[in-house]
């Protein structure tokens, strides 16, 4: 069956040209997906359509109602009997190549981040009084303020991790924006289906969002979409982001979520015989989930010397844990380019860095061990991890600081005092998120993505100067 990607309110699907892409990864069967070939004027029409309907149907709603609608949509997608959920469980593993069970668990874990209690957390995180999205509220400095989301928010999504579009799309809805989002060729279906379920749950909002596609890097449609939106948000590599930046109309803002590197740190305290195996299992979980394709996945594990289990032995524990994980959730098939880059990484580790490789290239994980202390660098992904022995974890932040613009999550296994001490040093070095080892790949609701604000970065505040109401008082009919 051919699935149709995209969600195009106000456009006649019959009048559009569609082409079928066979999507898959690393030699699987592939899944046929039809995508519309949209012209720049289609982008303009869609943006105006969602702008118009959002102004009429979405902006007047209290934010609590929007939370309820999203909560209902999420509840449907969490229900494994729901037809859309079933389609996701069927198609997403084929399209992305990820193990089906891993996709199923990952979907559930991600969707759980967007239920009502979590959505309230998103709101509370950015607005002490979320009613500021509904009307003017008193401001601490005096006066009143109301937060207005952009009339149309444009999204350019990446396709590395299923359900990634949820993060920005939900935020766009919470600030009452019309949304137009461009899906990646690598995974165009999740956002499409989310939009369809939303339209089903709340028909009055059916025309407030659109999901579009064009071949990544295609100039004209991208320019047209950016032109038609008030604020844009993009995920991607530095070159793609630079291209998008170059296409932004002057005076409009682009929120960029570029490539990031994350890593893990394991203190000697986490390496006593009773805890080391669990520590390794948690690290393996972070490394293997979605095959390291997320920005929050570790590239390097720094392991402190002096514990009962030495870093070298820990590397073997980790290899064992990865092996066990791979047994339950196999790595996806690699493309020739990925296989080549993994082979090159392994050779590089061995020959250029003198690292000890654990395991052979036939397995679906690679662990290299560096005795040397300094070894921060990117992995080729797909469950390839470098374990670096260090004398003191406190030495790590200065080693990673040169890469500050690239740093994101650090998974830490350490006692409380060390956790906070390291967090301070890592924050100075540019790291924006500290997680428990094992939780790196599941950011919590309302987290500050790359250190930024989910909702308040999207809105602008209109404020009523503190002196305006008294001045208005003098003009009231009831003025004495």
């Amino acid at each position, binding site marked *: 069956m051919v699935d149709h990607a995209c969600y195009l309110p106000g456009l006649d699907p019959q009048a559009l040209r569609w082409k079928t892409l066979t999507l898959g990864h690393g030699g699987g069967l592939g899944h046929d997906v039809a995508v519309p070939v949209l012209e720049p004027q289609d982008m303009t029409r869609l943006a105006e359509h969602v702008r118009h309907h959002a102004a009429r149907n979405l902006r007047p709603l209290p934010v609590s109602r929007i939370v309820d609608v999203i909560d209902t949509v999420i509840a449907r997608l969490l229900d494994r009997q729901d037809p859309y959920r079933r389609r996701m469980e069927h198609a997403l593993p084929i399209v992305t190549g990820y193990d089906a069970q891993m996709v199923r668990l990952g979907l559930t874990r991600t969707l759980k981040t967007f239920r009502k209690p979590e959505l309230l957390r998103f709101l509370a995180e950015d607005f002490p009084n979320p009613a500021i999205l509904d009307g003017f509220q008193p401001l601490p400095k005096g006066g009143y303020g109301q937060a207005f989301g952009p009339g149309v928010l444009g999204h350019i999504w990446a396709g590395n991790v299923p359900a*990634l579009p949820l993060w920005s799309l939900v935020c766009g809805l919470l600030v009452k924006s019309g949304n137009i989002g461009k899906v990646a060729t690598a995974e165009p279906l999740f956002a499409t289906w989310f939009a369809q379920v939303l339209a089903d749950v709340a028909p009055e909002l059916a025309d407030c969002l659109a999901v579009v596609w064009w071949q990544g890097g295609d100039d004209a449609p991208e320019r047209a979409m950016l032109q038609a939106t008030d604020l844009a948000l993009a995920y991607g590599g530095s070159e793609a982001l630079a291209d998008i930046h170059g296409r932004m109309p002057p005076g409009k803002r682009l929120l960029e979520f570029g490539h990031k590197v994350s890593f893990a740190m394991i203190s000697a305290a986490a390496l006593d015989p009773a805890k080391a195996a669990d520590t390794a299992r948690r690290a393996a979980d972070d490394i293997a989930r979605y095959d390291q394709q997320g920005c929050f996945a570790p590239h390097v594990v720094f392991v402190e010397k002096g514990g009962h289990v030495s870093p070298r032995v820990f590397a073997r524990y980790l290899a064992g844990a990865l092996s066990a994980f791979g047994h339950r959730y196999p790595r996806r098939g690699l493309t020739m380019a990925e296989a080549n880059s993994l082979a090159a990484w392994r050779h590089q580790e061995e020959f250029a860095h003198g690292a000890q490789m654990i395991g052979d290239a036939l397995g679906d994980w690679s662990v290299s061990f560096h005795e040397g202390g300094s070894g921060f660098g990117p992995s080729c992904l797909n469950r390839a991890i470098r374990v670096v022995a260090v004398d003191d974890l406190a030495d790590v932040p200065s080693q990673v600081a040169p*890469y500050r613009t690239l740093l994101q999550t650090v998974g830490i296994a350490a006692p409380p005092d060390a956790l906070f001490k390291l967090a301070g040093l890592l924050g100075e070095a540019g790291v924006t998120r500290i997680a428990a080892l094992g939780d790196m790949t599941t950011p919590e609701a309302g987290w500050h993505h790359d250190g930024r604000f989910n909702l308040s970065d999207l809105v602008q505040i209109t404020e009523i100067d503190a002196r305006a109401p008294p001045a208005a008082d003098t003009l009231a009919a009831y003025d004495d």
Partner: protein
Amino acid sequence: MTRDDISADLLKFISTPQSSEDAFNAQALTVFDFQFQNNQPYATFARSRGKTPRTVKHWSDIPPVPINAFKSLDLTCCQPDKAAAVFMTSGTTQGGRRGKSYHAALDVYDASMRRNFADRFMRGTPRLTMGILFPTAAMMPNSSLAHYLDLAITGFGTPDSQWLIGPDGIDLPRLTQALEQSEATGQSYALLGASFSLVHAMDAVQAQGRRFQLPPGSRILDTGGFKGQSRELELDAFYDALSQTFGVARADCIGMYGMTELSSQFYDDGNATCPSVKSGPHWVRSRVVNPLTGQSVPKGETGVLAHTDLAHYNIVTTILTEDAAIETDNGFQLLGRVSGAEAVGCSMAVDAFLKAAKAG
């Protein structure tokens, strides 16, 4: 066995018209044993893969060295300072380190080149007037390609053959004169050079509004590789342009594929259609493998090339390239360099990481 024994054996092997699978296997295992005994880094590498002369019974089991390793390891069976020649790769990756191949002697290298070149490029013609679009071996003492072309011009060129690249680039007047003379006398001409030099030459000739019609028997040899040195052309466009500019049929435009990490070359039988099928001589075996596992991929599927070149006895016979190819009945179609995987999402690609660190 000593180096002299091996080299004598190999010279004999190369000079035979063909080799049986058994003879190739026996010779390959002998050379593997020699390298295992005399090339310490290679022995360590082979042992780490569980391969020793005791366990390897077939040439396809000889562990291939990834070409990247040449940048970090001195893979040689002789003292590097006693090498007769050191050939280096042109790449400048990995902290500026270049891959090096130390040759204790060049007798087998030269014999391999001559025998194969005579068969595949000269096609029975003993000598041709040659123009070489490449710097001389004296200008580039560490270039295996310069050495190769030196063997071509000295072994197969007529006395009026010449090198056409000087310190200032292509010597256009001499090139034009040589082409004109060939046209006038009807004596066939051979133009040899790196692909990018040929592109420069075509650009220069076209800028003068010239076109040549070289006489029958003329031919062109390109050694592949643009490496960002000039306009990069699609293969079909490249051979069309060569054919139109010099009046040599595409079937007589022969592509050579060689590398610093080998002592033998591969040729196609002209480029009437692209991509052409390339193959090596009977002392080389090539396999198309999965780069990760080293296992051969099914015929018709894309993999990377692994070569076992007996003539490379001074270093290692068996290497794993980063060149993507498809095996065919008579050889392989070269598809270009396998790039690393692009990171598609928000995680980081190695190249981007290095770039960011440089910028930061």
